[in-house]
């Protein structure tokens, strides 16, 4: 039998359903892969024993009606998992074991899946290369010197290395789509409010959104269906009926209007990205879609806007990590203030501190109007750009990232060049829209590149369908050679 772990989620589910493989066998196969792949540093915590117990339970009393019957899943370590350490990639939560389960992971378990382990990520999801994690770099299976993207870098790496059949990440400015693009996988950021934020360690509340990361578009539909849903515990959750993305997945794009925004052609963008974009346009056109040139004039302000709004919210969201009630507490300090200072100095890494400082600054009296308030206004303009165009087009096609995966250490001393990596993904978060990154090709170094499809609010089905059609006709094949085994 060929290695089950190389297959996509949908096929694995089919094989579990037809009893060709048991949940225990499946789980053991992944455990074997993970144990051989420690070099990639994708996991912060593994929960093998617990997973095998769940697998046995499933095999004894299987329920094949579920979306994820007996499927082991590793998830980003930003989702709180009951009785399993949840670190958010930070020293300050190094010893934190939640007594509660995030809504999104609970939804997955309610659909038959169980936890295989917690995946490394940038500290508090702040980063684009998984280099800010307290638990060290994650390596991209594509090459031993490459970053897997970030912040969901453990997720993209584990998925591409066959350590988990699918996974979930969170996306505040591109943290699902960029790592998906860097590893040749599919990543979807849903409409803000589609997936509950309850139980996810917060980075920037108005932008954070959980989403699936998978090997194929149909896997993505299954995962999204399993994790999404209204949650009264999250005031920003959208009340709507459950959608059946998987059942309704269609590869027909005939007559759909695809917007091509001129602002997404940036200076110094590698020629390959441009070529890939052209290739994507041609595929969709050949399938009967209509390409329409559009303009999103405020795109150039998206990155500066993001780097005001996100740190502002983060500076406040991270105030709770003070060493008083849980998490790391410094032993040094003679009074409360010193205890705070030492705890936070020792508990947080440089990138987190940098963003707390930026966020505190832009909210300070005298600067609030010039930065935060103005950023909120620009954010509305960016959203309006999209709204205006979505009266004319069904979806928007752009590159996912301005480059392929870069080398570990290449950008760590230059935060701005690191931030520039999010240039195509950030506007979507600011506008609260859904977007998917699909693998589209390899650059001349053989590194994967993705294209991004942006949809209107709650139009996940449509971008999944377009991505599905694109995937079928693109002929993308990754060339990951399991060099770490």
């Amino acid at each position, binding site marked *: 039998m060929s290695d089950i772990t190389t297959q996509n989620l949908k096929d694995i589910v089919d094989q579990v359903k037809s009893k060709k493989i048991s949940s225990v066998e499946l789980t053991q196969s992944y455990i074997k892969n993970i144990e051989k792949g420690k070099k990639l540093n994708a996991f912060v915590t593994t929960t093998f024993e617990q997973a095998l117990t769940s697998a046995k339970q499933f095999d004894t009393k299987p329920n094949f009606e579920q979306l994820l019957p007996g499927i082991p899943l590793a998830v980003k370590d930003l989702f*709180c998992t009951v009785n399993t350490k949840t670190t958010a990639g930070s020293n300050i939560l190094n010893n934190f074991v939640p007594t509660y389960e995030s809504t999104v992971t609970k939804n997955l378990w309610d659909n038959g899946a169980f936890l295989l382990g917690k995946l490394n990520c940038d500290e508090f999801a702040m980063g684009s290369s998984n280099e800010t994690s307290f638990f060290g770099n994650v390596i991209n299976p594509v090459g031993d010197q490459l970053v897997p993207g970030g912040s969901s870098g453990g997720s993209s790496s584990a998925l591409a290395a066959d350590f988990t059949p699918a996974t979930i990440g969170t996306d505040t400015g591109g943290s699902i789509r960029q790592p998906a693009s860097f590893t040749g996988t599919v990543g979807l950021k849903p409409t803000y409010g589609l997936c509950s934020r309850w*139980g996810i360690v917060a980075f920037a509340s108005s932008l954070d959104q959980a989403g699936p990361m998978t090997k194929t578009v149909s896997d993505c539909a299954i995962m999204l269906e399993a994790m999404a849903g209204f949650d009264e515990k999250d*005031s920003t959750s959208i009340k709507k009926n459950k959608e059946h993305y998987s059942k309704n997945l269609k590869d027909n794009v005939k007559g759909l209007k695809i917007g091509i925004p001129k602002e997404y052609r940036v200076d110094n963008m590698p020629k390959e990205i441009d070529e890939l974009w052209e290739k994507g346009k041609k595929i969709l056109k050949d399938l009967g879609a209509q390409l329409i040139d559009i303009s999103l004039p405020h795109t150039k302000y998206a990155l500066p806007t993001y780097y005001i709004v996100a740190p502002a919210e983060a500076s406040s969201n991270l*105030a709770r990590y*003070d060493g*008083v*009630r849980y998490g790391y507490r410094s032993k040094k300090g003679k009074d409360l203030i010193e205890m705070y200072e030492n705890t936070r100095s020792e508990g947080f890494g440089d990138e987190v501190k940098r963003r707390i400082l930026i966020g505190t600054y832009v909210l*300070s009296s005298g600067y609030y109007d010039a930065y935060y308030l103005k950023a909120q206004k620009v954010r509305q303009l960016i959203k309006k750009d999209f709204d205006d165009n979505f009266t004319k087009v069904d979806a928007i096609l752009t590159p996912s990232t301005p480059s392929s995966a870069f080398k570990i250490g290449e950008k760590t001393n230059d935060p701005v060049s690191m931030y520039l990596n999010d240039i195509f993904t950030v506007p979507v978060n600011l506008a609260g829209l859904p977007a998917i990154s699909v693998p589209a090709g390899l650059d001349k170094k053989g590194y994967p590149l993705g294209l991004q499809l942006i949809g209107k609010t709650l139009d996940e089905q449509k971008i999944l369908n377009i991505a599905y059609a694109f995937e079928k006709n693109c002929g993308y094949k990754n060339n990951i050679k399991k060099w770490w085994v």
Partner: protein
Amino acid sequence: MSKEQFDYFVNGDQGKYEVIIGLEVHAQVLSNSKLFSGSATKFGAEPNTQVSLIDSAFPGMLPVINEECVKQAVRTGLGLNAKINNYSVFDRKNYFYADLPQGYQISQYKNPIVGEGKVLLDMPYGSKEVGIERLHLEQDAGKSIHDMDPTSTYVDLNRSGIALMEIVSKPDLRSPEEVNAYIKKLRSIMRYLGTCDGNMQEGSLRADVNVSVRKVGDKKFGTRCEIKNVNSIKFMQMAIEYEAKRQVELIESGKSIDQETRLFDTKKNETRSMRSKEDAHDYRYFPDPDLLPLKLEQKLIDDLKKSLPELPDQKKERFIKEYSLTPYEANVLVSEKEISDYYEEVAKLSDKKLAATWMLGDFFAMLNDKGLNITQSPVSAKNLAELVQSIKSGEISGRIAKEVFEIMVQSGDNPKKIIESKGMKQQSDPKELEKMINEILTKNKDKVDQYRSGKDKLFGFFVGQVMKVSGGKANPQLVNEILKKLLKG
């Protein structure tokens, strides 16, 4: 009625100063659960037993607004004759403290749920209107306990996240007496509405007091100081008096007043600086991204308005109109909901005017004497009503009634029973009285002659004799009538 003059001024060497006071009252919302979590809000529970993961700010926890708290704030706003804002926003007020788990307090900054309103005070010199600037909802913090251990501070989060209404007045108050009347009025309105229990001992009602002074006649306000977290009316008054004098002394000695936050030391009876304007926190307010703006349907507001109970001002008008009470009587009887409830129960079963007289007289004197509030009264409303009716019907005299009342207080017994068993019933049978009076007149023939020859003053003597003989039970009105008739001869 002659009105007293307003006369609260601080006299300096260089003139008279007016004291300008504004209050920020923190009133705990009466609700079973906290503002953004389902935790209980009972007072006096064991430390840290009413704390949810949200109140203690665990990672990934999110606030969800408690609708009942929103309704309570709207009711209070309506009770303050204030504008209810259909759109309001929750903001984060950021600062670090051990008893503030989130590192921020969720409050309302630029867009409060309630806008401008007004409260009417009854002062001896007339009615006074105090403007309300705004009312907003916010979370309470936890409690730091510094005296449980010599080296550590303990934190109790039971209070963390409890809903508070911050009611900000305009700087319209001018004396400690007005502050007293204002707090009592606010408290009364909220207790009528059932939106705050107003219990100052338990901290359900606290206030920050803003004080400034200016020379009488000046138009410009002076620099104000804020006295933080004063939790009794007496302390507020003491703090204001001290602070006003301190400011006048500073001005007169040519010094300037620093805008600062001060604390009132209840032991030393003085205020002292807590932090200056320069040291003031930068709270970095911004809209809480975990909560959507609060949008209230006009229908909800209208429905709440319709279901509002009768409030003290309206009740007072009604008592004056329907029960012919004096404004003073009505004022006292509506001052607290429990008092007005008690009065209405008495009035329903007896003479309304006489009931008021009795309550304001012997009844309150008795409660005062015993240090009881009206809900602890040993005399039930029904029994008091019967007593009032016994007086009204002439069954007993007012004097006997006082004796009956005393027995009622001690025994809790029904007045009819007391009158019956002690034979205190008034003698109101004209025939029997006439017989008794005739006997007395016969016995005092000389006095009768003197009276008839013009010594009118002797009338009192005959009344006294009748009362003596009857053991005080003779109906005084009848006695008067019969005596007059018989003495005419």
